[in-house]
């Protein structure tokens, strides 16, 4: 109905109208940007939490923790449990892990030391680092292999030294593992960490056991068997799937994110209201201009298009800026939510950025609809009399 030449004219007209009323347009764009930024950032956190806490169908990882203890400072289990656990049917491997964190509460910058038996670890994680880095790590008792995100966050590379949580370690290499729990961790030799962490516990005490099993469908069964094994012991255990372990530690954060998500949706509603309001106000103050355009021969479809294009530009520019800023922030800050020694990485996601932009565009189109119809139906004479 509208030919290409006229459409280009309308787009040019809409664009000029917006850039030459910079205060009005700028405020709307800034509002849209903030709302989309909020939405995308919260959604990135939600995605991270979901990824870390929803049980995958192929999950084979269990965490054995001290019963009724929820923080690595207080969960203490004797290392010799390793033997008993490895004999339980279905268990493939058991790794005693000593965890020392720089901060036990929910935080965005936590270093988690995981003390592990060096030889076993070298075998099971051979693919995660270069052979040179791995042999370096094996050779030095005080050396650490760092998770990728931890290394980037602290700007550490092989050969550096660093101190966190009272532990001073040498960086042997960086792990390429994508597993969320590896990202913020520094893997060190178990005896070294046991020695360094003298908070009441002595050698032979670990925080937890990381257990691998063969058959994902037996996850709960094996967990029950492990807990039954030590039920009457002095230090009974609670065994959960790794994702469930993270979910439990992250209960507060999950509740917070659920709430933040509501805020995100409220922000989107605000986007809609903001654009709709801006367009309605702008069209109201421009009724005469609309009448002039009509007099010049612009029809209802032209005017509706003009209004929609204006709305679309505001929504798109605001959406791209907001989603881009959110993506950049998440990508650059490499945020990991960490609490009680478990880490939830917040991944930058192109998908979320695109979704944020698409939503902003859709909302801007919806917001422009009513003003567009009103403008297209306006009678010329009434516009001049206003």
């Amino acid at each position, binding site marked *: 109905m509208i030919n290409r030449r006229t459409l280009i004219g309308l787009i040019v007209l809409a664009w000029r109208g917006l850039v030459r009323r910079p205060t009005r347009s700028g405020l709307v764009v800034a509002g849209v940007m903030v709302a989309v930024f909020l939405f995308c950032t919260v959604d990135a956190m939600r995605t991270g939490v979901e990824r870390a806490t929803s049980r995958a169908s192929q999950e084979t990882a269990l965490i054995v923790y001290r019963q009724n203890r929820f923080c690595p400072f207080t969960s203490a289990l004797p290392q010799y449990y390793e033997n008993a656990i490895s004999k339980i049917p279905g268990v493939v491997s058991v790794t005693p892990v000593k965890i020392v964190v720089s901060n036990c509460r929910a935080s965005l910058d936590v270093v988690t030391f995981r003390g592990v038996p060096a030889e076993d670890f070298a075998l099971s994680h051979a693919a995660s680092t270069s052979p040179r880095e791995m042999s370096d790590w094996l050779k030095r008792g005080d050396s650490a292999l760092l998770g990728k995100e931890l290394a980037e966050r602290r700007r550490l590379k092989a050969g550096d030294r660093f101190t966190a949580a009272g532990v001073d370690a040498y960086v042997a290499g960086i792990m390429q593992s994508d597993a969320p729990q590896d990202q913020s961790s520094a893997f060190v030799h178990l005896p070294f960490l046991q020695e360094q962490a003298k908070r009441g516990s002595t050698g032979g005490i670990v925080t937890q056991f990381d257990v691998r099993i063969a058959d994902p469908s037996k996850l709960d069964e094996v967990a029950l068997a492990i807990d039954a094994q030590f039920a009457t012991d002095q230090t009974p255990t609670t065994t959960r799937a790794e994702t469930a372990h993270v979910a439990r530690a992250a209960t507060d954060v999950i509740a917070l994110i659920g709430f933040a998500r509501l805020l995100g949706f409220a922000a989107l509603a605000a986007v809609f209201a903001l654009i709709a309001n801006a367009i309605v106000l702008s069209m109201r103050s421009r009724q005469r201009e609309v009448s002039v355009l009509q007099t010049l021969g*612009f*029809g*209802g479809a032209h005017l509706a298009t003009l209004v929609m294009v204006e709305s679309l530009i505001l929504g798109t520019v605001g959406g791209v800026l907001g989603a881009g800023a959110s993506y950049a922030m998440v990508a650059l800050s490499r945020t990991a939510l960490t609490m009680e020694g478990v880490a939830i990485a917040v991944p930058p996601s192109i998908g979320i950025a695109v979704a944020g932009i698409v939503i902003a565009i859709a909302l801007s189109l919806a917001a422009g609809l009513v003003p567009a119809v009103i403008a297209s139906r306006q009678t010329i*004479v009434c516009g001049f009399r206003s």
Partner: protein
Amino acid sequence: MNTADAIITCTALEKHYTRGGETVRVLESIDLSLERGAFVALMGPSGSGKTTLLNLFAGIDRPTAGSLTVDGHDIVKLSRAALAQWRASSVGYVFQLYHLVPVLTAYENVELPLYLQPISRRERHLRVSEALESVGIADRHAHYPRQLSGGQEQRVAIARAIVTQPALLLADEPTGDLDRTSAAGIMELLSHLHRDRGQTIVMVTHDPATAHHAQRTVFLEKGRLVDAPEVHR
């Protein structure tokens, strides 16, 4: 007058408004024929219906009854969209208060109606430049309306009205808001367009001196045409 030459023909034209349940007859049984190429002044006291009649001619308002043919089109029968399309090519309208788009420069204001014409960018540029030239405001093409004087704004508005080379140029008190010197300049310009280009012009005015520029004057009183001697220059 020979109706074959007529650019506007109306018979028994009526325009009523209902205001608070009461019908106001703004225009009553208007029979009129205006010839192509003429410069016609429309005069009458305030509230007599001059603007209303001009708006009917321009196809920006619809008559309540009667027939109205402009430039060979029975515009009463045209749909809303068809009427808009017809306006785009056939009518130029000059307002008392100029009504330039404030965020567009003089050049862009004049360019505006050409977006609806099937012409190339080059052609558009030529036509806008020519129109600005012919109203004597080419040197102000990059100015915004607020940077122009009233007389200059009205010149830009006239350029915008004639840039599509319409069959009919309508002007509603084009000098009504201007000082005497600027007003004289605008009348000079309209006379020039009429004389040199054969532009048909229908102009509403209060001022007999302004009406003198026209070949013919039509008088309205309380919505009816009234007899008055034709005024020739």
